[in-house]
């Protein structure tokens, strides 16, 4: 596909400005007939035949990318030769029609008695009465909704990467995925209805590197399929001391690495850590500015030099004549000919390439969100104050144990907080001291966009995210807000809302078939569709 064949390097310098802005990649097929509001369809009559044709992966993916104008994001070229990051594996061309009594397109948008047609991993049709194509499987369910997303997870991340305290800004969690020994964890998370996650390594460092958005399909132990978005965010952390109260943890390669535990740093450390975050963003902004300036100056220079060249060429005959004359004269004088001095046409200097700063530049420009794990209210306040002037920065707070004190500010700036409704005791004095289970509810009530995550420490905890969400509901979060946080909210925050997070035409078929409303205590998940295939069926439970 574009860019990959002739650009096999792992990291090309990002081509700024042409990168895919968030949400722009709309699926090519929109509502066919505005009058036919009930039916979202490809076109009426030739539907089935067309689906059959669509089974060819080549046609399908090229169609998608052509229509999207989607070029592989240069930073995404860690997975070269890849047409579409995270493309669902289409070895299984099965077609499914799911007939739902209730289809929750997204929280608050519910359709009664609606069917969903899935083929090649995508939702191809949504409508009240879809005919069953030949060879398609028909499933029925009381409720169909989008499957859950864990926006703060450690699932599939190599332990060494999780514990790495020296992640650079340009270090990618996607490079540190270990997808070979986690099938059971994936399966457990899938059984709980979680099909994708934003995973992040390096939580113990001040800089945690680039996070990835992955799909939890246990059959895909290939990053090509598992990674939906290789660079979902850049993460940083404030307040976790790296060196105090250290313990040793076994790394993936058998060595031991010192890790910190959740010991808090002191107030002054936190102040300087916030300053570091802010100046990082600043550096990224400056880097981008320098780059743009260079491009501009270079262009200017190139134009000037072209003009000059033309001029010189035009004047060449005269110059040659002059020189010949001078040479002759010098010879006559018995002197050596001195060439006339050419005033150097100085080329502007290219700024020194720095991949870390390039990553920070993407953050400063809002191309990817900046996730900062921060808990103390003073630190959050300082962070908010420090980042206020970066108008394009998309800040996301992770943890935010004491974020309530800044709720107004957060709400006003629309900064999402990923709340981790963890069950912590009171005996440990750590950064989480200020957290309560009612945090999510209270923040949401104050108008802060709330997401729910499983904390990004242990791969095991993603499985319990739906229960943690229920716990948050038990402590004041509205059910609809919780569902939004687990689905479209999380997708939106990490720029994958065009792919997952709701049941809509053209999106990936990541969805749940339930016997009751989602997040209700005794609702059972019957099917979990992940990348268009049933990863969990009633037999699995």
């Amino acid at each position, binding site marked *: 596909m574009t860019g990959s064949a002739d650009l*096999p*390097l*792992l*990291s090309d310098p990002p081509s700024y400005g042409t990168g895919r802005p968030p949400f722009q990649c709309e699926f090519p097929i929109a509502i066919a007939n505005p009058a036919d509001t009930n039916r979202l369809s490809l076109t009426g009559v030739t539907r089935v035949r067309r689906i059959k044709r669509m089974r060819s992966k080549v046609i399908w993916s090229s169609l998608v990318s052509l229509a999207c104008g989607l070029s592989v994001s240069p930073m995404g070229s*860690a*997975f*070269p*030769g890849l047409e579409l990051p995270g493309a669902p594996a289409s070895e299984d061309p099965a077609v499914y029609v799911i007939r739902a009594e209730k289809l929750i397109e997204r929280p608050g948008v519910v359709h009664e008695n609606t069917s969903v047609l899935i083929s090649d991993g995508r939702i191809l049709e949504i409508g009240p009465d879809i005919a069953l194509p030949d060879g398609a499987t028909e499933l029925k369910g009381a409720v169909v909704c989008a499957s859950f997303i864990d926006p703060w997870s450690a699932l599939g991340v*190599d332990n*060494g*990467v999780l*514990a*790495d305290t*020296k*992640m*650079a800004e*340009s*270090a*990618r*969690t996607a*490079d*540190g*995925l*270990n*997808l*070979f*020994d986690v099938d*059971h*964890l994936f399966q457990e998370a899938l059984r709980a209805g979680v099909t994708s996650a934003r995973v992040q*390594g*390096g939580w113990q460092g001040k800089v945690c*590197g680039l996070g990835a958005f992955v799909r939890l399909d246990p059959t895909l132990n*290939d*990053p090509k399929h598992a990674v939906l978005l290789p660079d979902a965010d850049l993460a940083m952390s404030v307040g976790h001391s790296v060196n105090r109260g250290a313990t040793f943890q*076994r*790394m*993936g*390669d*058998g*060595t031991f690495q010192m890790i910190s535990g959740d010991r808090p740093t002191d107030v002054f450390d936190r102040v300087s850590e916030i300053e570091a975050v802010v100046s990082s963003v600043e550096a990224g902004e400056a880097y981008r500015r320098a780059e743009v300036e260079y491009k501009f100056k270079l262009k200017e220079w190139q134009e000037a*030099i072209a003009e*000059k*060249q033309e001029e*010189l060429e035009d*004047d*060449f005959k*005269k*110059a*040659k*004549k*002059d*020189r*010949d004359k001078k040479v002759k004269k010098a010879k006559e004088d018995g002197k050596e000919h001195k*060439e*006339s001095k*050419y005033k150097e*046409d100085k*080329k502007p200097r290219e700024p020194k*390439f720095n*991949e870390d700063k390039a990553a920070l530049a993407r953050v400063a420009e809002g191309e990817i969100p900046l996730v900062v794990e921060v808990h103390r209210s003073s630190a959050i306040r300082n962070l908010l104050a420090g980042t206020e002037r970066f108008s394009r920065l998309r800040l996301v707070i992770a943890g935010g144990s004491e974020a309530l004190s800044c709720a107004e500010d957060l709400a006003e700036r629309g900064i999402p907080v990923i709340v981790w409704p963890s069950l912590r005791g009171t005996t440990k004095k750590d950064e989480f001291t200020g957290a309560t289970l009612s945090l999510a509810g209270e923040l949401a009530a104050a108008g802060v966009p709330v997401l729910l995550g499983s904390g990004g420490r242990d791969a095991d905890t993603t499985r319990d995210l739906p229960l943690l969400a229920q716990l948050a509901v038990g402590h004041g979060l509205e059910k609809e807000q919780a569902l939004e946080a687990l689905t479209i909210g999380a997708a939106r925050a990490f720029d994958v809302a065009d792919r997952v997070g709701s049941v809509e035409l053209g999106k990936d078929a990541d969805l749940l078939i339930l016997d009751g409303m989602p997040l209700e205590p005794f609702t059972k998940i019957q099917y979990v569709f992940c990348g268009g295939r049933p990863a969990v069926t009633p037999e699995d439970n």
Partner: protein
Amino acid sequence: MKNQKLGTLARTAVATCLAATALTAATNAMPFSDGNIVIKAGQVITLDGEPIENGTIVIENGRITAVGKDIKYPWNAEVKEYPNSVAFPGFVEALTNSGMDRANENIDVAAFLNVKDSIDPVSFYFEDSLRSGVTTLNVQQGGSCVVGGMGYIVKPVGMTVEEMTVQPNSGIAMSAAPKSGKSRATQTLALRQTFDDLRRYLEGVVQEKRDGVDLATREALYQGREADEETSKGRPMGGNGWKVSNLEMIPRWEIDEKKAPLLGIVEGKTAVFFYCSTPGDVQTAIRTAKDNGFLNRTVLCLSSGCWKAADLIKQHNIPVILSSVLTHVERDPVTGEEKETFVPAVFQDKGVRFALRSAGTSGKSLWYQAALCVGHGMTREQALAAVTTTAAEITGLSNRVGSLAPGKDGNVVIFSGDPLSVMSNVEQVVVEGNHVYDRSTDVRMRHLETGAQPENTSAEMETGTPHKHDEPEEKDDKEPDEGENEEEKDDDHEGHEDEEN
């Protein structure tokens, strides 16, 4: 009492001086001939056709000139007859991190270094290898690197690296497994940046050159003269990987000597031995090799857990060198059951070419590893290939070593019986036509076998290890392979224990 004195003082087996004197005696006391020798053995296993009963091997100038039954040889040749023994090709150690002063360099990218500067010809490692019938060794930097130094293929004979050399510059070590202080993410980043930097550097050099030419052109125009012709020229960039156009503008000698070996890798001129400690590392290694065009020059050096990526390896048709730990043990994360996988069998079944590595020097050398493979159901041919012919192929020496055939190096090991039997011993070794080892004069071997103290060794020189306890801390008697950061994982069962609780 005689015993008492010995008993109290001589507690450790290998005293430095002891082995040194002993083996030097065993090897170098042997007069070096001119590489001409004729060996007759009760059976000759050539690995290049059927075994020959009562066969003869003729070696001239270090090379085999004839192998067969009842063949003619020069009348003046030195003839060694071993009617009750088995002649076998010298074993090929496809990869080792031993025999060096130290196995790892602490800088990330050290492609400009060469292990020959680190090889210690008098290291016991080489003596022990010879004693076990290993006649060819590919010495490579260990796995704690991003890009390591250049390797060397040597024979375990000679007092200088030059004498030992079989093939200089056998390939560069790289690692997808994290170097200490790095995680998989930062290791991958470093790998990517290494080649990214190279490309940026080359483009920069070309651009600079071009800017210079442009400037010169303008200057000439301004001065009213013809521009100078470019005199020195380089080659365009070769290989299957990415290209920097107009590289021919740059004479190769102008390229930074630290970058040149990397360019060699991308141009496919240098073999790469890529260390992987997990199946995920295999993905990283393949991706890196593919992106930079050296996939067809890559050999993966795997730790035992990497068998899970066998399909991926097969798909890309890459040869592999397996870890010395042949059985991979893991616990089922759900049931807690212990699962054992015999790794060579997996690769054999998938049809991936593989070589084995020794697990220790004298005790668990290549014959031992091959024997274990047979015990796990592989055929003798398959097992022996992994320590001879395939190993030679993988290290690029298939025309020189690995089997007894005319034209190949005259490396012959005389076994007292079946090479894979625990009852057989390496009795004689001939390397490049020189008779370099004779078990009957190997005093160190006698010491290991019977505890006999060789003469001229003093008890004071022995080093004891007081207060060392067997259980449960102690690891098996493996070579101190610093390079093998992946190996610990395989052995560590206590680690699994921890997970359980």
